[in-house]
C-alpha cells in the first residue's frame, strides 16, 4: 500500500492498471480524457500490458469493449456526458449479453445548452440499461470502486457491466491523497476473470441471439434477477475488500451520524461531503441531522435504504439530475421504499446542475423548505429573466404530492403514496 498525491483521474487510471484489463478502448471527451490518457501512457511505456484501441466514437469504443469482453478478457472504457449517451445503445447490449465490461463515467452535464461541467444527468439517464452504477464521494472511493466494480461485474451470479461514476472536475481534476494497493493485494481481492462463455474460433458461438416473444421476457427477467444478486455480491465484495485493504468500503451505502437523526440528507457523489459538513454544523447546534451516501444506485438497494431511513421523520434527496416532466429519479426510488404510513416524508431537490456549486447554503435552503416538494430546484437565480416565464422562482413549481396531500387529511397518515 502506497499513499500518493493523485488527481482523481490518475487514481482511477492506476486502479484500472492494477486490474490489468486486456483491452482498453476509448474516445476522448472532457472531463474524462485524463483517465484514458494516463492509461495510454502506461501502455505506450510498456508499464501496462494491455491492448489500447483508439476508437472513432464512444459507440465504437463500447462496441470494441463488448467484442473484446465476449472473447473472455477483462476490458475497460471511460467516458462522460454525450459520450455516455452515445454508448447507451451498446450498453444495453453489453448488459443483455451479460458481459462484465467496466467503465468509468466522469459525470458531466448533457447538451443542450452545451456545458462541460459537472452534474449527474448523463449516468442517471442510463439507469435502465442494466449497468451497475456506483458513485464515488472522493478520489479514494473512485479508485476503490474500480476494484469492486470488476469483482462484482465478473461474479457469475451477476455478469453485468459496471460503471464507476465520479463527479467531473470536482473529483476528476482534484488532487487528493489516495492509497494505492500493491498488485499482490489487488490480486488477492480480484481473481482472474473466468467467463461463462467466450468467443473462440475453435468453438464458435453467437452472443445476444434473436429472441422471439416466447423467450425475450425470460431473458429480461434473468437480467433483473442478476441485478438483485448484485446487491449481495456488492455486500460480500465490500466485506472482503475491507479485510484485504484495511479501509472502509461502503459498496452499497454509508450512513453518517444517522443513529438518532430525525432529518436525513441522501445523495450520491461528491455533494455528500458538503452534506456531511452541514450535518456536523447543525449537530453542533443540537439539530439531529444525518446523511446517507448512496453508492450503489443500480442495483438500488431497497432494504438497506429502507433500514437507513425508516427512523427519520424527514428525508431530503439531493440530486444532480432530473427526469424531466417527473421528478428527480433518485427521489422516485427513495420514495418507492418509503410509501407506507408513519414513514418519513421524502422531499426532492435538484441542485448542482452544469457545474453550479453545491454549497452549505444550498443544502440549508433545502432544509428550510417546508413543502413536500418533488423537484424543487435549489439556487435558482431570481435576477434572471427567463423568456416567456418571467423570473425563475416567482412561480414555485407545485409539487405533485401537494395535490395528493389535500385529499388526504392528516400528514402522518402517510403522504408519499401519491
Amino acid at each position: 500500500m502506497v499513499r500518493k498525491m493523485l488527481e482523481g483521474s490518475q487514481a482511477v487510471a492506476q486502479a484500472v492498471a492494477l486490474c490489468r484489463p486486456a483491452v482498453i478502448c476509448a474516445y476522448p471527451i472532457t472531463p474524462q480524457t485524463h483517465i484514458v490518457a494516463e492509461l495510454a501512457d502506461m501502455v505506450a511505456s510498456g508499464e501496462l500490458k494491455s491492448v489500447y484501441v483508439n476508437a472513432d466514437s464512444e459507440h465504437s469504443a463500447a462496441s470494441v469493449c463488448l467484442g473484446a469482453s465476449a472473447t473472455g478478457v477483462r476490458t475497460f472504457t471511460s467516458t462522460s456526458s454525450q459520450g455516455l449517451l452515445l454508448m447507451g445503445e451498446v450498453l444495453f447490449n453489453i448488459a443483455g449479453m451479460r458481459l462484465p465490461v467496466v467503465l468509468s463515467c466522469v459525470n458531466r452535464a448533457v447538451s443542450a445548452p452545451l456545458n462541460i461541467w459537472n452534474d449527474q444527468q448523463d449516468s442517471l439517464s442510463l439507469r435502465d440499461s442494466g449497468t451497475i452504477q456506483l458513485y464515488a464521494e472522493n478520489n479514494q472511493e473512485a479508485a476503490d470502486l474500480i476494484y469492486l466494480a470488476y469483482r462484482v461485474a465478473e461474479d457469475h451470479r451477476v455478469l453485468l457491466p459496471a460503471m464507476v461514476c465520479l463527479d467531473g472536475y470536482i473529483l476528476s481534476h482534484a488532487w487528493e491523497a489516495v492509497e494505492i494497493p500493491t498488485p499482490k493485494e489487488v490480486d488477492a481481492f480480484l481473481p482472474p476473470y473466468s467467463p461463462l462463455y467466450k468467443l473462440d474460433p475453435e468453438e464458435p458461438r453467437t452472443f445476444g441471439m434473436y429472441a422471439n416473444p416466447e423467450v425475450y421476457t425470460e431473458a429480461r427477467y434473468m437480467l433483473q434477477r442478476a441485478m438483485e444478486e448484485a446487491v449481495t455480491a456488492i455486500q460480500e465484495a465490500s466485506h472482503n475488500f475491507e479485510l484485504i485493504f484495511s479501509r472502509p468500503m461502503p459498496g452499497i451505502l454509508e450512513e453518517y451520524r444517522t443513529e438518532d437523526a430525525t432529518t436525513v440528507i441522501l445523495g450520491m457523489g461528491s455533494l455528500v461531503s458538503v452534506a456531511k459538513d452541514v450535518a456536523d454544523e447543525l449537530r453542533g447546534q443540537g439539530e439531529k441531522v444525518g446523511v446517507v451516501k448512496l453508492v450503489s444506485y443500480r442495483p438500488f438497494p431497497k432494504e438497506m435504504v429502507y433500514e437507513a431511513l425508516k427512523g427519520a421523520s424527514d428525508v431530503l434527496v439531493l440530486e444532480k439530475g432530473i427526469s424531466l416532466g417527473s421528478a428527480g429519479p433518485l427521489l422516485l426510488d427513495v420514495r418507492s421504499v418509503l410509501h407506507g404510513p408513519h414513514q418519513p416524508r421524502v422531499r426532492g431537490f435538484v441542485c448542482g446542475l452544469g457545474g453550479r456549486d453545491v454549497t452549505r447554503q444550498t443544502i440549508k435552503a433545502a432544509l428550510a423548505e417546508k413543502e413536500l416538494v418533488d423537484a424543487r430546484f435549489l439556487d435558482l437565480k431570481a435576477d434572471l429573466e427567463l423568456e416567456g416565464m418571467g423570473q425563475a422562482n416567482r412561480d414555485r413549481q407545485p409539487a405533485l404530492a401537494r395535490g395528493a396531500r389535500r385529499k388526504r387529511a392528516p400528514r402522518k397518515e402517510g403522504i408519499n403514496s401519491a
Partner: protein
Amino acid sequence: MKVTTGAVGLPGTSRQNKTGSWRINQRPHFLHIRCTACDLCALCCPEGCIYGNGRNTYYSDYEYCKGCGNCAAVCPVDDIEMEPEKGGLPEGVFVFYDEEEFRHMSTA
C-alpha cells in the same frame, strides 16, 4: 428448453429460426414461363432464400420465405405472382438452446 445467460448459443440459429412462420396470407409462385434467369429475385430477397440456376429454375424456400413480395415486384418479365397462402406454414422455433438441445434440433 433452456434460456442461456447472455442469450449465448452455437452458430447456425438463423437456419433454426424458420422465418417462413412469419408469412401471413401470401407467398410467391414462380411461374417458370418467361424467366430469363436475370437473378434479380434472388438478389432482392431480404431473406436470401431464393435459389435457381438457369431459366425457369428459380424457387423460394418456403421454410424461410416471409412473403414480402419483393421478388414478384422486381421481376422484369412478371414471371412471379403472389398467391394466397395454402396453409402449412412452418412452425416458429425458439432459439435459445443449450448445446444438447441444439444438436438434437440440428440433426432432427
